[in-house]
């Protein structure tokens, strides 16, 4: 077990804003259980502000603390402010994350941004980018998601870890 900061332990022991939002305005899911972490963020938007932010997380202590921190940072923020949340700013607010946890557990900002993209696409403010494809199987993917929708990395987890 890595050594976590007090802030991480606090958010892990007492995670804020856990749950799902029914009829959410935007939903973003990242990761998969193969790599050990998976997060789903739900947002409710009113007057360009994130009125409510909730999430569900499958993952280690860091992943849970990251989701909790992201929800706190995003709740009440404008869309533009929330889009500026990065893995780095989340780690900073958490008073640091163990090095080896940074990449796989720090998916919160990404999941939140996906939920925001989902909202923007639903409301016609953002068009799907058709120029993206999975680097492993050439399957075209319109989302900025490291995990291919075809699930090729789930079948070949070695590719990802190498």
């Amino acid at each position, binding site marked *: 077990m890595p050594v976590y900061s007090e802030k991480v332990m606090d958010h892990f022991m007492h995670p804020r804003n856990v749950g799902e939002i029914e009829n959410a305005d935007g939903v973003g899911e990242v990761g998969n259980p193969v790599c050990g972490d998976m997060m789903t963020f739900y947002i409710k938007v009113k007057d360009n502000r994130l009125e409510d932010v909730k999430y*569900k997380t499958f*993952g*280690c202590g860091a992943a849970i603390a990251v989701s909790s921190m992201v929800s706190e940072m995003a709740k009440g923020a404008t869309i533009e402010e929330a889009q500026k949340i990065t893995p780095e700013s989340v780690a900073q607010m958490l008073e640091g994350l163990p090095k080896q946890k940074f990449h796989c557990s720090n998916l919160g900002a990404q999941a939140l941004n996906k939920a925001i993209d989902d909202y923007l696409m639903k409301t016609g403010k953002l068009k799907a980018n058709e120029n993206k494809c999975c680097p492993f199987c050439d399957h075209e993917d319109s989302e900025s998601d490291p995990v291919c929708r075809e699930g090729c990395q789930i079948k070949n987890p070695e590719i990802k870890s190498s």
Partner: protein
Amino acid sequence: MVSIMHANGEVGTIQPLAEISRITKEKKVVFHTDAVATCGTIPVNVKELGVDALSLAGNPFYGPKGSAALWVRRGVRILPLLDGGIQEGGRRAGTEDIAAIIGMGKAIEIALRDMADRGQKLTKIRDMLIHGLLSKIPHVVVTGDLIKRLPGHASFCVEFIEGEGMLMLLNSQGVAVSSGSSCTSRALKASHVLLAMGYSHEIAQGSLLFTMGIQNTPADIDHVLNVMPPIVERLREMSPVYSKFLKANKGGQ
């Protein structure tokens, strides 16, 4: 050469070495076993097992950490890993750690004297834990064999959640366990043992290993059985995998 663990430390299964050695003898293949998990815990007899070489370590039977031994059948020749001095018949260079050797000798003496008694107690609390957790928490699988298993060893996979979270919450309740989830490993990979046994990544992430020792009592198991169900429930409640499972099940009904 064939080398097989006598018992696997991660899932507790005791391997059928005697059956395997019948094959290696017939094929004239040297057979080594890593008996670190079994020596001092259950009866180990190189004649009955039919092995040609056996490794053991002192710490599993309360000997000094760092003490260990390699037994080699007469006639089996080995190349030293450490070259230099002529200690131990030229098989391993380096000054012998006398205190560790004496300590391990004394520990195995006590372990052999108390083996039946310790084994009985440990098997009893182990089964208490296994049956207790299975009856209190749904969607839990026991990894490894239920009967041909190390006394004092209980290993599980708890579905829909990840091991490190459980480990941290159990730790906050004074329960020290380990997990083979990718998050708890340095390499950030799920346990190769569980994957080789056919468990999916998803299930292997929820692995949890309890090892009990001679200081543990039935009261300790009661404590685990009290604190563990709410921990699992808490983590499942925030797991997207679990809510997906619940939704899929609802749809199927």
